[in-house]
C-alpha cells in the first residue's frame, strides 16, 4: 500500500519526518484528513493539534500554532511557525 512521506519543519528546527498512513490537520476551514493518493493541496494551518498515524508505532500528536502545509504525490510537508511534539497518548483527536 502506498504511504505518505511526512515532513514537519518549524522555523528554526526540524521536527519530524517519516512514513505515515494518515495525517489529520486543522485548516482555517475545518479539519482535513490526508490519506495516500490525496490530490495536491496547499492549505493554511490553523493553530491546534496535528495527528499523524505512522506506518508503525503509536499515533503522534504535534501542536502547532499556525503555518501551512502542502500535499503532492504522497509527500506531505507541514511548515509550522512553532511546533511541539506531544505525547502520543494525549492526542486530542481520536
Amino acid at each position, binding site marked *: 500500500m502506498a504511504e505518505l512521506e511526512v*515532513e514537519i519543519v518549524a522555523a*528554526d528546527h526540524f521536527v519530524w519526518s517519516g512514513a505515515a498512513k494518515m495525517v489529520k490537520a486543522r485548516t482555517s476551514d475545518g479539519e482535513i484528513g490526508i490519506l495516500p493518493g490525496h490530490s*495536491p*493541496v496547499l492549505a*493554511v494551518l490553523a493553530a491546534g493539534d496535528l495527528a499523524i498515524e505512522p506506518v508503525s508505532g503509536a499515533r503522534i500528536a504535534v501542536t502547532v500554532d499556525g503555518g501551512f502545509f502542502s500535499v503532492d504525490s504522497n509527500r506531505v510537508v507541514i511548515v509550522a511557525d512553532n511546533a511541539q511534539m506531544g505525547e502520543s497518548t494525549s492526542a486530542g483527536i481520536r
Partner: protein
Amino acid sequence: MGAQIRVYRQKINSTTSMRKIFKAMELIATSRIGKARARVAASQPYANAITRAVSAVASQTQIDHPLTTEPEQVRRSAVLVLTADRGLAGSYSAGVLKQAEGLAELLRGEGKEVKTYLVGRKAQAYFEFRGRPYEQVWTGGTDAPEFDTAREIGKVLLEQFSLGFEQGGVDEIHVVYSRFQSMVVQVPTVVRLLPLEVADEYVSDESDLLPLYEFEPETEQVLDALLPRYIESRIFAALLQAAASELAARQRAMKSAGDNATELIKKYTRLRNTARQAEITQELSEIVAGADALNAS
C-alpha cells in the same frame, strides 16, 4: 639603562595579557561558529519548503498579489543593514556598511528616496556618528539571532511595504548582509526582498514540474499567509548567515591579533635582552676602567 628594561618588561606584560584575551575570544568564536552553522543548516528545511510552496503558487496562478507585482515606478526603497553588535571582528561590519553605502548611493542616483533600517550596534554607531537618519534599529543578539527578531523586522518592513508611497511607505525592500561562504570567505551581499521576482522557467523533466495545487481556503488567503512567512524566513536566513559570518570574521581577526601579539612579545623580549646585556657590558667596562685607574696611580 634600567629604565629601558623596565619599559620593555611592562610592554611584554601588557602584550601577554592582551594575547590571553585574544586567544580566549578566538576560542569562544570558534566554539560558537559550529553552533551558528548548525542553525543555518537547521533553518534550511523550512526555507526550502516555503520557497517551494511560493514558487508553486507563483507558477500556476496568474497571481496579482501586492507583494509580487512590481510597482510602476519605485520612488522609495527600504534598506535593511545587518551588522554586528560588537567590534573585534576585523572588517566585518565595515564591509557590510560599505556595501550598504554603495547601494544607497546607487538608489539615490536612480532618484529614489532611501529609508534605512539597521540591525546591530555597530551600524547604529556608524549612522549616529555621521548624523545620518535611520528609521529603526534592532540591537542585541546579532551573534545568535532569534526567530522572533526576524518576525518583528518582517512585520515592520511589510507594514512599510503595504503603505502606499503617499503615506510614507516604501516600494521595494533590500537587505544587505554578509553571506557565509566558508570559514575564510564571507561576502557582503545585497538581495532584493520585495517585490518578489517571479521568474519564468522552462522545465524539461516531468518530475521537476510543480503539481497543480488546490488551495484551502482560497488562493488569496493562502498567499496572504504564505508571503509574510516567506519574507520572515528570508530575513531569518540572512540573520543566521550574518551571525555565522560575524563569528568567522571575529575568529580570524582574533587569530591574527594573537599572532601579532606573539610577534610583539618576541620582539620586545629580544630588545629587553639586548638592553640587559648592554647594561652588564657597561657595568663591566666601568669596573675594569675603575680598576685600571686605581692600578695606574
